[in-house]
């Protein structure tokens, strides 16, 4: 079957834009209309929860009490947003998220690109094993390793500069470290695949010119990896920012939690009605929505770089 398909494929590509293909698509017009209807309905269902949250967040609680949540009427304003922002001190949690996400992201990309350089540009015997360790490690469920990790975190002492609590547990350093250790696996996998596509002659030439391995990595390969790094950066930013589990378990001090995990504590404490929860959720979603609207292409290519190997 595959042989037949490739055979006819050759025939077709010999005459591109064949009239028969055009006729085919014209004949399928009712089918297309139906397909559009189906996709529109699906998309409406898909966007409904987000629109509902947005709609709810724009209405004062009192109005939803009198009119009901699924209704039209009453006032529409941003008061829920300002209340959520000020009373629950959301800026503090955004700052926490930044303190964790930015260093974790940079460290992950840096370490992963170095490891990827070694395994993709050299043929050491342990390369394959290393790639397997990285890739498999990234795929383990976090809960499968949390119990000893938690004990480890309580046990390892840290100087006061790096941790208020005196150990890895309940510290920004600890959270950054686990993100780096966990996410490096995926990034090594993706970057190694990408670096393999760079011709060997490029580093070969640099080597002949006397460039050290470090310079080959830093000045030759890394600049060429910019597209892959950009794609990974958007993806990893979203993943680290969206983390809920590590922060919930490994950060006990509520005031130090990043915003995704903090929201859970704040609900019930400050956010007592669905309108406020919706507003807070929308605020928390803003950074990822920015990624969605501005960097969707990078995000998608990051995901697919990892998926379509070789």
């Amino acid at each position: 079957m595959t042989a037949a398909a490739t055979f006819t494929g050759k025939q077709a590509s010999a005459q591109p834009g064949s009239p028969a293909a055009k006729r085919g698509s014209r004949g399928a017009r009712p089918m297309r209309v139906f397909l559009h209807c189906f996709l529109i309905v699906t998309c409406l269902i898909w966007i409904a929860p987000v629109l509902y949250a947005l709609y709810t967040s724009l209405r004062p609680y009192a109005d939803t009490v009198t009119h009901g949540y699924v209704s039209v009427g009453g006032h529409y304003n941003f008061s829920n947003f300002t209340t959520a922002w000020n009373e629950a001190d959301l800026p503090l949690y955004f700052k926490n998220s930044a303190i964790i996400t930015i260093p974790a992201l940079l460290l992950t990309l840096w370490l992963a690109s170095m490891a990827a350089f070694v395994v993709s540009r050299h043929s050491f015997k342990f390369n394959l094993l290393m790639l397997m360790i990285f890739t498999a490690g990234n795929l383990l469920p976090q809960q499968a390793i949390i119990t000893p990790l938690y004990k480890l975190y309580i046990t390892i002492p840290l100087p006061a500069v790096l941790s208020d609590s005196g150990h890895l547990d309940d510290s920004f350093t600890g959270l950054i470290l686990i993100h780096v250790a966990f996410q490096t696996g995926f990034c090594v996998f993706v970057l190694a695949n990408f670096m393999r596509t760079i011709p060997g002659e490029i580093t070969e030439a640099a080597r002949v010119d006397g460039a050290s391995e470090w310079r080959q990595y830093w000045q030759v390969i890394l600049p060429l990896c910019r597209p892959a790094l950009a794609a990974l950066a958007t993806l990893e930013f979203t993943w680290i920012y969206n983390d809920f589990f590590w922060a919930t378990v490994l950060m006990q001090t509520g005031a130090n939690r990043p915003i995704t995990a903090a929201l859970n504590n704040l609900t019930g404490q400050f956010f007592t009605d669905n309108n406020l929860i919706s507003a807070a959720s929308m605020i928390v979603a803003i950074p990822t929505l920015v990624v969605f609207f501005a960097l969707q292409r990078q995000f998608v290519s990051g995901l697919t770089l990892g998926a379509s190997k070789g």
Partner: protein
Amino acid sequence: MASTTLSPPRPKAPNRLRRYTVRDRAALGLMAGVPLLLSLAFVWLPALATVALSFFNWTGIGGFSDMKPAGLENYRIIFTIYPEFPPAIEHNLLWLAVFFVIPAPFGLFLAFQLNKRLRGSSIYQSILFLPVVLSLALVGFMTELVFSPTEGLVNNLTGHAGQNNLIDWLGDPRLNIWAVLIMACWRQTGYVMILFLAGLKSVDPSLQEAASLDGANEWQSFRHVVWPALRSINIVVVVITVIESLRAFDIVYIINQGTNGLQLLSTLITANIIGETSRIGFGSALATILLVISLAFVLPYVYITFRKDTRS
């Protein structure tokens, strides 16, 4: 880059018996060693320790001296008298089954349709993809909004928000897992769709054209031209489906910390370490079960993926 153009004719066999200076050796060692060490220390060491600790009883309050060998006792308790375990494993399996039955084929279907370059295709794609960038914790809050009994979208639209015919989507232990699964599928479908779209992009469009030229209908051309070309993506989707359903945690934890109809292996493990009574050994035994199930899928995947490398 500039150095490439200046370089003399390159040697013919570049990768053979390369000699490294001491500095290069040290640099390469550090570049690979530091990330590797991090992964081993913070991922693989805990993974091994999980298995080891599962054979001990340990409250975790005292030091290592408090550890008492327990043999298979933790596992015996889990499989015989621990009341939370059967529902947890049931829910994990249900999650897995639903992820295989709904988001995987539906994501493929959507990807196949969107790949036809319809007008407005990118708008459809963006909307279907939107939930993927939202955190699972946020999806948890959305679940509460949409399925809230009196204030939620679903009950109000279907007329079940009144006191006499209220459907308690989140409180009823027979229903709440389904509410959660609907929202989990909402996010997972876009994820799967994007992966398949990438896979479909690599299928030569002239092949499909040729198939339709030969009189193949849409199903035949999908079955015989597109599907065989999606092999490697299919493996990725299977692994992601399995891993995501084993990792499931955030949504149920937001709703009720994984109790009352929403038990999952992941929430039981978490409850055993951050609860008031921390039972390290028992939690580890649960985690070992989760670890073994995941490795049963992860290791073959990694093996298949990198087997090509050993051949070349």
